[in-house]
């Protein structure tokens, strides 16, 4: 595995943006979370992972981030940063300092770290909220701060675990819009775990469908559509229907 369990602090960064999983199996006691999963994400590719609850999506991300080791198979990935299912903003820091946290952890001084965080928050439409306390932010704003924090880590690979799962439909559509915008400006390799097939088709270059536990890859659908995409575009709805169909047949097959 190229990912380290001990975190690096300084030194040359791994700029390798590829992710490779080969026949990866992960067990927790008798529970097989992932069973022979192979998956590839090229540099700057956005790969969405959809699958029923318990199919091992979060486990997959943790393997890529080096937080877990596979029981069988191989995981090769550069430096990957996790954005967990909840935003996990620190209540003792304001929005700006939460976003700047990865820079401070990389021992950047306070002022330049804040300046960079400020710039990114402005791009994400948070002007005027930099000094807000986390509990004064709406759910959508908190998510923007969390995404800013993830981006500022500078990691070439981002593992987003249902980043917008807790948002209402309108805020979510909005969030998908600005995430697509940010990734267009600052491309990264992204593994995007989501329950929402539409979100997967709107944001990703490929949609990987996992079966119910034990998680196996049952479909790998390319999304060769120009950006920005619209949910009402017939090509998008057609792909969404295909992804849903394979998800449904996987669930019936697994049941």
């Amino acid at each position: 595995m190229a990912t380290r369990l001990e975190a690096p602090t300084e030194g040359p960064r791994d700029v390798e943006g590829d992710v490779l999983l080969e026949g990866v199996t992960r067990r927790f006691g008798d529970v097989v979370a992932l069973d022979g999963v192979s998956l590839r994400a090229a540099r700057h590719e956005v790969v969405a992972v959809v699958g029923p609850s318990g199919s091992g999506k979060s486990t997959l991300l943790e393997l890529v981030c080096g937080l877990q080791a596979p029981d069988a198979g191989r995981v090769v990935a550069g430096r990957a940063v996790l954005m967990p299912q909840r935003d996990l903003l620190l209540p003792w820091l304001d929005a700006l300092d939460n976003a700047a946290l990865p820079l401070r952890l990389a021992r950047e001084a306070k002022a330049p770290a804040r300046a960079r965080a400020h710039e990114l928050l402005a791009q994400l439409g948070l002007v005027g909220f930099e000094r807000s306390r986390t509990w004064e932010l709406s759910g959508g704003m908190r998510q923007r701060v969390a995404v800013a924090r993830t981006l500022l880590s500078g990691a070439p690979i981002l593992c987003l675990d249902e980043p917008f799962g807790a948002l209402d439909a309108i805020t979510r559509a909005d969030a998908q819009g600005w995430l697509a915008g940010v990734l267009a400006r600052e491309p990264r390799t992204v593994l995007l775990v989501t329950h929402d097939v539409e979100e997967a088709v709107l944001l990703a270059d490929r949609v990987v469908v996992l079966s119910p536990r034990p998680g196996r890859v049952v479909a790998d659908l390319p999304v060769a559509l120009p950006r920005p995409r619209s949910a009402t575009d017939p090509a998008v709805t057609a792909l969404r229907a295909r992804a849903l169909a394979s998800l449904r047949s996987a669930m019936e097959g697994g049941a």
Partner: protein
Amino acid sequence: MLAGLLVLLLLGGWEAYARLGGIDAFILPAPTQVAQALWDDRGLLWDNLLVTGQEMVLGLALALVAGALLAIALHAFRPLRRAIYPLLVGTQAIPIVTIAPLLAAWFGYGLLPKLVIVALVCFFPIVVTTLDGLASIDPEQHKLLRTLGASRAQTFRWVEAPAALPAALSGAKIAVAVGGIAAVFAEYAGSENGLGHLLLQSIPQLETARAWAAVVVLAALAVFCFSLLALAERHLAPWAHRPKDLDA
């Protein structure tokens, strides 16, 4: 409002009982007599308040520092925690009344033995709450920090310490209640001044109203220390009082 009424009612009842029940003033002085003593002995009470106040504030500060340091050590080394926690609980069963004279014999009549006793008593709730605070970090948060490359020391600096700060102050607030009692016992064991000393002297002198006045001042001191800690908490850890949100 209701609390005020309740206190008035209680004091009124006490006053009536003490005055009309034919009870000797040196057994149960009426609240007005206690108030009179508070005024008459104000110089004496003030001087002794300064002594006990110093013991309380410094003792609490000592307990906060020692308690937080021990909690950090126990948090950092799991085996130490398993070994020392039971011992800590054990120390809390030692009656202060018995060790106070020993400490007086070792450390003399000065401030030091009082500080040690107050700190010894206040220390335990602080260790417990601080440890809980340090351990309260969401496991997901730890995962996030690891992928961000945070070292052990950075995790402490950015996440664990801020989480433990309001917890330690809460522990100190709990400790104030027992700290006052500890200060009084410490002064009983050997002292020439302080509210506890005044209390001990007033009773055989049949100055019961003065003794009650000392108790009132002691209670006020505890309330003062408590408010001081609450104020510190609001300034140092405003997030601990945020309106509840779903996350964090």
